[in-house]
């Protein structure tokens, strides 16, 4: 009797485990026969930067295939947006790439502006550029800290988070929120910068370059770091293009493509900055690119601060059909009250047509596709997110490297699973 019960329980367990037959065609035949080993990595692994599960097929220590399994952080944002007016959908976009919410806000706001044909005043654009570059620094700082800790360098994380904390403090000054800021909105930004923002930012810009030098002193010439990073995870330029990779992962392979330069938005064409490029396409080059991007962001921020001091005027579009009136107008103008009421209850209508707009986030191209209905809610909103694309390319860029290198490769393409699953 005992034997029968045991065989039943094995049957029962098989049902849940599934069989290797399901993987036929996805892994090599050698895995089915047991010649190579299938190893599960994640979803709760410290170096997967979120909830990502990888099914690895290993020949000894060498990676033969890697099957990423995503969806653990799927939040249904694209579906929820269909039931919200355009402005009310904006806070959801913060939750996609939670390390640079400002970039998501910008991607969505730029798409809505394109759909509505809405203008953004100069001051609003300058504040946006400041937010986007600060977000780029904050995101790269988290990347730097976690990437270093993945590779065994513990202390960089503490340094990186110390500076990130100051950036989040500045976001709190602007929006009242450290992370989920919802600050960049269609037509401009939510409110003007506070009086203490610019002095704080100037102090930060004064201190930060020396901190970047500190990170470089810890890592750039560090022999252990170079051994782990150089020649690992090489992405050939044609592979990067075929798999649609963007951002530092593409520029690390030497392809000069940055949407801030190529298809400028928010006035990026008027700023003087360079696009750092790699040569070898390995983990080390992608590291160097992000370090250089800190310095380029500093350049942009310094120019933007100088402009913000002279640029007067509104920070948000004056088109009252799309952007709410100032609080001070509400006591004076009946029209302002009507606009205020209309905008915060119904919202606004957008054309029954489709647009695609893209911006350069710290990770790569965030595209936003919106199809309106002619009324106040979209028919479909789709986000093309860089992490999604980069994870889909993981099998190709990790093939032939060692299991220990997988951690370095995942870190170097800088994925965020909230961004991937949406």
């Amino acid at each position, binding site marked *: 009797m005992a034997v029968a019960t045991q065989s039943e329980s094995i049957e029962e367990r098989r049902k849940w485990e599934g069989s290797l037959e399901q993987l036929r065609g996805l892994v090599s035949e050698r895995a089915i026969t047991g010649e190579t080993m299938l190893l599960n990595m994640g979803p709760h692994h410290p170096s997967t930067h979120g909830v990502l599960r990888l099914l690895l097929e290993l020949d000894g220590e060498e990676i033969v295939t890697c099957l990423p399994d995503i*969806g653990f952080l*799927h939040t249904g944002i694209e579906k*929820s947006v269909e039931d919200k007016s355009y402005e009310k959908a904006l806070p959801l976009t913060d939750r996609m790439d939670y390390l640079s919410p400002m970039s998501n806000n910008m991607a969505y706001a730029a798409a809505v502006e394109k759909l509505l*044909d809405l203008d953004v005043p100069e001051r609003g654009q300058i504040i946006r550029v400041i937010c986007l570059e600060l977000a780029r620094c904050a995101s790269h700082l988290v990347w730097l800290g976690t990437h270093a800790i993945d590779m065994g360098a513990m202390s960089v994380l503490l340094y990186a988070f110390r500076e990130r904390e100051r950036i989040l403090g500045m976001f709190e000054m602007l929006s009242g929120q450290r992370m989920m800021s919802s600050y960049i909105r269609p037509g401009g930004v939510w409110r003007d910068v506070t009086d203490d923002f610019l002095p704080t930012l100037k102090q930060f810009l004064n201190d930060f370059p020396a901190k970047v030098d500190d990170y470089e002193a810890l890592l750039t010439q560090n022999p252990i770091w170079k051994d782990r990073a150089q020649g690992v995870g090489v992405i050939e330029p044609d592979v990067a293009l075929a798999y649609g990779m963007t951002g530092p992962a593409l520029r690390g392979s030497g392809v000069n493509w940055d949407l801030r330069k190529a298809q400028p938005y928010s006035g990026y064409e008027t700023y003087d900055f360079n696009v750092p490029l790699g040569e070898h396409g390995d983990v080390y080059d992608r590291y160097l690119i992000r370090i250089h991007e800190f310095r380029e962001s500093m350049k942009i921020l310094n120019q933007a601060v100088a402009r913000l001091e002279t640029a007067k005027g509104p920070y948000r579009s004056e088109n009252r059909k799309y952007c709410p009136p100032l609080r001070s107008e509400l006591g004076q103008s009946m029209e302002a009250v009507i606009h205020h009421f209309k905008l915060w209850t119904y919202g606004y209508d957008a054309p*029954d047509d489709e647009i*695609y707009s893209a911006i350069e986030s710290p990770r790569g*191209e965030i595209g936003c596709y919106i199809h309106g209905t002619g009324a106040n809610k979209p028919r*479909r909103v789709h986000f093309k997110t860089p992490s999604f694309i980069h994870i889909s*390319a993981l099998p190709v860029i990790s093939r032939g490297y060692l299991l220990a290198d997988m951690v370095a490769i995942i870190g170097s393409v800088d994925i965020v699973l909230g961004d991937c699953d949406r």
Partner: protein
Amino acid sequence: MEIPAAIDPVPAVREAFGDGVLHVKQFRDETTIVVAAERLPEVLDFLRVSSGLVYNMLSDISAVDYYPADFGDEFAGAESDFRPERFAVSYHILSMLYNRRLRIKAFAPEEDPRLPTATVVWPAADWLEREIADMMGIAFEGHHDQRRLLMPDDWHGHPHRRDYPLGKETVAFSFNVDEIHQHKPFASE
């Protein structure tokens, strides 16, 4: 190296594919070419390799559902937009050389929606198509991996369809799951 001058994609595609081009639309400086579903991979490959076009990157694939009535012969806005079927899939392609984007669109019918896969042209289409197959229920013929991508393997229905319930959802516990399934036919079938 001499870079060939950029040519307008619309006449080029019209000349190469004739009846394969169903409609062309301009909106906010974006060009959309609607092509016949069965010629989709050919059109995409033509745009990728032809001199003067070189759309060398697939930015995005998005699907849209025109449910309940914004498509077909009765569609009121027919003069402004072309919507012969319920589902549409848009391929956003980018030419880095000429720095411009183009949208290629194909329609799939309400009954048994399916399109040929673009993975033969772009490996990048792999997951983008799997996501659409999972969330919108459009099958891609010839795709090498037909598993669901985001939703669990045993999930019923396709959440991004417009007739899939949205909001006002009760949290399912074992004591009320039958009751919930009764008023959510699309989720339980």
